[in-house]
């Protein structure tokens, strides 16, 4: 029998081999084969425990920490990888697929990492590979957003590394498990984690970068970074009170910004922040039910958010428009009804309409808050539910597919049709999973880390949710015309580094001016000294008695080559010296 390998390697190796395949069909088959293979691999690694331990530099690197929690995230990551690949079949650029494969592989690496060093390495690969999904959009906005994305993540990664080093040197253990909250190392590690989880005020990278990504790239981006962060939070910091409040505030925060948003994918991005808020809150609550809730909500969220982004990305793909102000009033529902219906499945799921998967997961986190008698948290999460339905369920579909055009001059029709078949198939499969897991919640409940004693389908839950949603729709009805997109951008916490960077740059320019000034001055002095030293008497004569100089003028390049070669030879000798010294001293120390 073939034994399982770390699923991260399947994706990373699959990505490396992809450019070697020549025929386009073969590439497409390969793209679907890799996630399928990884799924089979997951099925083969059923028994809990730690596997694939490699001894390296005195530490144990653990590539396989397998238990119900990591398996749950592993399954959904591989499933969404497959769905996203179906959606992305038309993409011809190998580079994008390779980046995606690395990204998925490293996210799986994080999920199954059993020690902090492995975790960190995959964490960084995740940041470095995902940025290419933004840059492949190949426009100026994407380039800038990508750099900001990368810098925030590298900052988070550095905080994580600093925390890990302090943690390892104080406790002596590299094992990744529950970390005692309170020490400096734990705070640094937590900072690294919550930057990836997009907890305000460290969330702006998400709403900044995801909408600038490629049409297909944004679907992968929604799934892995924030959810792997939720996973590590569950692993390391269950029951940390700070996370309860952060999560609840985050859930409402995303909703507020979504009201103001005009860019359709940015609106959805703010709802990622809002939904991850439920998960972070669940981690903070820390009871068995809350942890179960966070896990199952992450699972469901990955599916319905992928579906929502697929719907929005399909609209961008066929129309080339990405703003509500450009789309509303164009009656696109007549031209793309299938896309609209499938999008609505995602919208109902995120809004927790009964029989869709959000209902079985979101309510579990809220119920966990209720069980602990946390009225404020409970009401904040409830409030965020209202906003979720208001935007993704009502405002966005109304604005994209129906709505009234704001100005007369934008009334001209835009080209639109149903997206390509493979996109519709991907959306259809995702929608199917959203409904199946919503109707039969025990499929997911059986995967969870703790036994589930929660039944979402009680009359009180169903009626309460229906009341909440229907009356939200009624209120939307009152505001429908006022809630259309406005051609504005909203400042968020990225203001600090986007505007701040300008100030820093201006300061740098000034410093550079000073530097060039001093350099010019110094080279003038050198030039004068060279001329003077050639013939001091004559130079005094030229200076004071205006006699014409017979000396050749100063030439900066005269000895450049000779000196350059000399310096290079010296450097080579120095290198050889260092190598010899290194081995000598090394031998002595042994």
């Amino acid at each position, binding site marked *: 029998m073939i034994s399982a390998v770390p699923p991260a390697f399947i994706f990373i190796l699959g990505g490396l081999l992809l450019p070697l395949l020549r025929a386009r069909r073969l590439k497409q088959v390969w793209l679907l084969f890799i996630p399928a293979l990884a799924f089979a691999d997951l099925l083969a690694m059923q028994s809990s425990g730690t596997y694939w331990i490699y001894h390296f530099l005195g530490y144990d690197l653990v590539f396989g920490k397998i238990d119900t929690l990591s398996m749950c995230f592993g399954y959904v990551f591989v499933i969404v990888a497959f769905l996203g690949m179906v959606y992305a079949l038309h993409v011809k650029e190998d580079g994008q697929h390779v980046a995606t494969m690395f990204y998925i592989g490293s996210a799986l690496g994080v999920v199954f990492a059993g020690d902090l060093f492995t975790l960190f390495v995959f964490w960084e690969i995740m940041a470095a590979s995902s940025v290419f999904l933004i840059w492949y959009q190949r426009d100026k906005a994407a380039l800038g957003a990508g750099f900001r994305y990368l810098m925030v993540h590298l900052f988070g990664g550095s905080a994580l590394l600093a925390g890990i080093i302090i943690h390892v040197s104080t406790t002596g253990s590299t094992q990744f498990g529950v970390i005692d909250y309170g020490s400096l190392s734990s705070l640094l590690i937590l900072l690294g984690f919550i930057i990836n989880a997009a907890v305000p005020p460290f969330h702006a990278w998400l709403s900044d970068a995801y909408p600038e990504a490629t049409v297909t790239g944004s679907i992968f981006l929604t799934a892995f970074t924030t959810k792997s962060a939720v996973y590590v939070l569950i692993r390391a910091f269950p029951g940390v009170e700070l996370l309860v409040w952060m999560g609840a505030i985050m859930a409402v925060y995303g909703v507020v910004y979504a*009201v103001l948003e005009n860019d359709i994918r940015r609106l959805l991005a703010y709802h990622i922040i809002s939904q991850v808020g439920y998960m972070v809150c669940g981690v903070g609550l820390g009871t068995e039910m809350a942890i179960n809730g966070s896990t199952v909500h992450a699972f469901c969220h990955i599916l319905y958010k992928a579906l929502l982004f697929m719907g929005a990305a399909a609209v961008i793909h066929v129309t080339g428009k990405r703003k509500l102000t450009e789309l509303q009033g164009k009656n696109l529902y007549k031209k793309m009804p299938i896309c609209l219906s499938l999008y609505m499945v995602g919208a109902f799921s995120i809004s927790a309409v009964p029989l869709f998967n959000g209902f079985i997961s979101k309510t579990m986190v809220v119920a966990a808050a209720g069980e602990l008698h946390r009225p404020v948290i409970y009401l904040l999460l409830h409030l965020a539910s209202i906003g979720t339905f208001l935007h993704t369920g009502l405002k966005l579909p109304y604005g994209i597919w129906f709505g009234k055009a704001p100005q007369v001059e934008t009334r001209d029709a835009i080209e639109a049709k149903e997206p390509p078949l493979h996109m519709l198939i991907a959306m259809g499969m995702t929608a199917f999973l959203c409904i199946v897991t919503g109707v039969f919640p025990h499929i997911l409940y059986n995967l969870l880390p703790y036994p589930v004693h929660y039944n979402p389908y009680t009359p009180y839950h169903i*009626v309460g949710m229906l009341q909440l949603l229907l009356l939200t729709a009624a*209120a939307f*009805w009152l505001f429908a015309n006022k809630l259309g997109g406005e051609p*504005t*951008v*909203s*400042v968020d916490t990225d203001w600090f580094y986007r505007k701040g960077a300008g100030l820093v740059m201006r300061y740098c320019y000034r410093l550079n001016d000073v530097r060039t000034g001093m350099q010019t001055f110094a080279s003038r002095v050198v030039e004068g000294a060279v001329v003077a030293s050639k013939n001091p008497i004559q130079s005094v004569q030229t200076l004071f008695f205006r006699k014409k100089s017979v000396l050749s003028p100063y030439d900066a390049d005269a000895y450049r080559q000779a000196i350059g070669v000399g310096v290079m030879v010296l450097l080579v000798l120095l290198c050889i010296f260092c190598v010899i010294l290194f081995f000598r001293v090394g031998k002595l120390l042994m």
Partner: protein
Amino acid sequence: MTRILRYLFLIACGLAVLLGFLIHVKHPLFRWETIPAFDAAFGFLGCIIIVLISKMLGKYWLQKDEDYYD
């Protein structure tokens, strides 16, 4: 057509509120769970509050022209 949809929607709202009066929670976790149609009121008012507060924040503070960062 839209008219029928509108009536259907209103009937659905009414039904949901009515159903709220028929269901009694055995062990309420919070006091408001004993109020029938609390969720309906919360949904309606919550939605209005979210929209108003966000729009105010946007208008007076957060919303800028599209070329703000250029």
